[in-house]
């Protein structure tokens, strides 16, 4: 983030002596790895505060007390995602996310979930381009169990067949469901593959099918030893818990884990795109579709906030420009949507348009280009900008309703930008965006020569027949 994007100081240096008595007590008799220090008290919006602590082994503990209900969300964010893989081994971060629910030296296969469910907890995990995280929602009484099990699988996971083979099958089925048999999923995968020729954002997080099926247990073990270490993780705890209890549990369960040497990422910056790229696919879908990826800014870039606002004006709701033009006035689209990628490195501004009836992708693209030409040429109105800001403010607040919503924002921004409260930095940045900023980002990013287009055509099998009597009775 450039200096001018920095909001009023949200990160106050830790006051001398903050938590001093507590830390002295907690550190008494602990090893160097388990010693905990207070790193920062960080304002999380106008009325909440995240405390960041660090253990001697490098594990970050981010704590937000929320005593509105007797529940806690525990999330562990690792700084590893599909971008850290290499060609031929794509999908390993995601497969590994599945394997982390398996056997450890202390817990039999299947027992991880069983023990937590029995305690009333719910678990899940997610992997994306920049990160992987593990999530447990639990009643407050179950936090000790949850942290014990979490730490156990970071340190003592057992990787062997037939569990690895079985989980590969599950992931292959997940891929069929989310990508191969899903028009949106397969088009998105193709869009990123065509848009990124060098950078790791070009391969899918779930991995290519051949790679998924080719993984060995040794691949998984090597990945585990490389990336699953306390100094590559942030533990986020939000809910009805005190700092003393949370830190004591962190020391007890994570304080023996040694740090690793995290490899320097061999990142390959994407060269500038100077020509439009187009691909065409056929799918068993009733109407033509078109996906467009404009090269966009990284999450931490000064331009990210104005581009998010511009997207809101173009695609946010029924009063947005593209919805109004393509869906309501011209009636050539049944669905339009846009999304500004939120990644560490520059990624895509994704646009997806689905044609109505016999209308074509070419018509959709021409109509979109007409709208985009206008926003590159003339300033948008202050009213449109104000409405977009109000929509984003509501969306930000809605994401904070539950303990898991708060934990997810804290973990995401800590992992990608190094600031657990950057969600609010974003909100402050939205407030400062001017109509001129919108004009600048429209002219900088909505460029034909840096876009990638996927055209989707029905494969000829779909027919517009709405007659129920098309059902065919077959003798059993």
């Amino acid at each position, binding site marked *: 983030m450039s200096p001018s994007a920095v909001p009023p100081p949200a990160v106050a240096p830790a006051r001398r002596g903050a938590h001093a008595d507590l830390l002295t007590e907690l550190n008494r008799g602990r090893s160097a790895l388990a010693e905990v220090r207070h790193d920062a008290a960080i304002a999380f919006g106008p009325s909440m505060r995240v405390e960041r602590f660090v253990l001697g082994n490098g594990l970050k503990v981010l704590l937000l007390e929320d005593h509105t209900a007797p529940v806690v969300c525990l999330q562990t964010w690792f700084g590893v995602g599909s971008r850290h893989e290499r060609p031929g081994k794509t999908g390993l971060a995601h497969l590994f996310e599945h394997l982390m629910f398996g056997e450890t030296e202390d817990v039999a296969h299947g027992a991880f979930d069983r023990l937590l469910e029995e305690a*009333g907890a719910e678990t899940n995990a997610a992997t994306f381009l920049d990160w992987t995280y593990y999530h447990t929602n639990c009643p407050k009484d179950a936090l000790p169990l949850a942290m014990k099990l979490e730490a156990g699988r970071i340190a003592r996971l057992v990787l062997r067949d037939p569990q690895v083979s079985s989980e590969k099958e599950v992931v292959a089925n997940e891929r069929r469901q989310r990508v191969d048999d899903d028009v949106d999923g397969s088009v998105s995968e193709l869009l990123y593959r065509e848009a990124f020729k060098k950078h790791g954002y070009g391969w899918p997080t779930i991995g290519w099918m051949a790679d998924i099926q080719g993984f060995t247990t040794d691949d998984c073990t090597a990945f585990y030893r490389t990336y699953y270490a306390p100094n590559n993780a942030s533990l986020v705890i939000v809910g009805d818990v005190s700092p003393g209890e949370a830190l004591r549990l962190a020391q007890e369960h994570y304080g023996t884990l040694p740090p690793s040497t995290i490899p320097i990422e061999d990142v390959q910056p994407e060269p500038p795109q100077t020509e439009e790229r187009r691909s065409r696919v056929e799918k068993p879908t009733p109407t033509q579709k078109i996906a467009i990826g404009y090269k966009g800014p990284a999450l931490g870039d000064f331009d990210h906030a104005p581009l998010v606002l511009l997207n809101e004006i173009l695609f946010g709701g029924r009063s947005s420009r593209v919805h109004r033009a393509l869906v309501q006035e011209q009636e050539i689209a049944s669905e339009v949507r846009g999304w500004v990628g939120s990644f560490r490195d520059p990624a895509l501004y994704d646009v997806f348009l689905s044609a109505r009836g016999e209308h074509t992708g070419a018509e959709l693209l021409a109509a979109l280009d007409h709208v985009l030409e206008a926003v590159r040429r003339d300033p948008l109105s202050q009213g449109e900008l104000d409405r977009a800001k109000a929509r984003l403010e509501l969306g930000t607040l809605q994401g904070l309703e539950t303990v898991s919503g708060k934990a997810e924002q804290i973990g995401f921004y800590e992992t990608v930008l190094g600031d657990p409260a950057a969600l609010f930095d974003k909100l402050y940045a939205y407030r400062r965006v001017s109509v001129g900023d919108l004009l600048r980002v429209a002219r900088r990013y909505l460029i034909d020569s840096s876009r990638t287009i996927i055209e989707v055509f029905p494969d000829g099998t779909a027919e517009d027949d709405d007659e129920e009597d098309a059902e065919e009775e077959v003798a059993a």
Partner: protein
Amino acid sequence: MSTATGTAPAVHIEPSDALPIVSVAVTFRSGSAHDPEGREGLARIFARMLRRGAHGYSSQQIEEAIDALGAELAADVSVSSTTVHFEVIRRSLDAMVDLVANLLARPTFDERELSRLLRESEAEIIEARDNDRALASRAFRRTLFAGHPYGRRVSGHIATLRTIGEGDVRAFYARHICRANAIVIVSGDVTDAEGREVAERLLAGLPEGERVADPVPPPVAKPGRHLVFVDKPDRSQTQMVIGGLGTDAHDSDHTALFVANTAFGGTFTSRLMQEVRAKRGWSYGASSRVGFDRQRDSFTMWTAPAAADAPPCLALQLELLHTFRDEGVTDAELEFVKRYLVRSHAFDIDTARKRVHQRLEAELYSLPEGYHEHYVDHVQAVTREAANASVKLRLSEDDLVIGVVGTHAEIGEVIAKAIPRLASVTVVPFDVE
């Protein structure tokens, strides 16, 4: 706090100052079950028309006003209800209440907007053919509840949408949108008194009216085993839903069946998930559910195996259902699932929105007294005998509907062969509706 006297609108408020936002839902006890024969989709079209013109506001002006206030508005229709709900930043609450009260009391039902919406809705029906899971669900419900309101599609069909006119929309509005048919819930950054004032202002422009009777009769089981195969090209994977009639919230064994089903397919480590996913890796997801509405709804098992695994997966699920009925749940399974349900209950009520929605549900479905308030006690009281008796009584192996989305030429025959005692097979092109 709540009020629900006579035919006055029921109002429930759940204050919380955790965030500066307020959530409101105005629900009417009428939904797609009230669509006239041949006009399926009417309730949903009516609900969507509410934001497409009101006294002093065009459709575009309504959208811009909502956005400017930092609000979201949605209109949803289910079989038994029509709900207008909104969420708004606290500072804009008054203005948003005025706007929504105007939408409810003085809609214009402009003919051009209606034509536009009907064309949009047709396009959405076509677009929905891309969603295999939804295709499986519709085929299943259409077959299980054939001729019953629960078997209808809430969004209607292209043919029925083409019969809907302005008069139909106005007639639906006149009959169903009145104070006596309404339930209002408010949660978030308001006091109880403020919430009540919000509810009163929202309904102020509506006639008193009468509560509309529920036209839905109890569904009757479809005898025999029936396969409905939705044929879609190039499927590497199938979506399968297997089931029959399930539970009614007023059944004396309702909680017992709910608990037994949770052990069978309601958690990540349940029997179904273990057998299908953990042991065999056949499907990313595997679950079962007993839902309810005002009447008995369905029991369903869901999986999504690769095409080649679909026949053995289907056979396995039928076997698991047989064992479930025959032997029921074990003591260990029952104890486990009761602990899970009781302890995880904290997450059913951890936000004001969830708490007030429980009260809406109780009103809307006329749930037995204390349904949510005594949930934990009810779960604790379930015995193994009661759980297993409910499974045997309520779930059938003989009367089953199996909905499958796949490529019929490749797996249609083997799927049918995997189902013993199959009474009928219906093959439906995926683009039939």
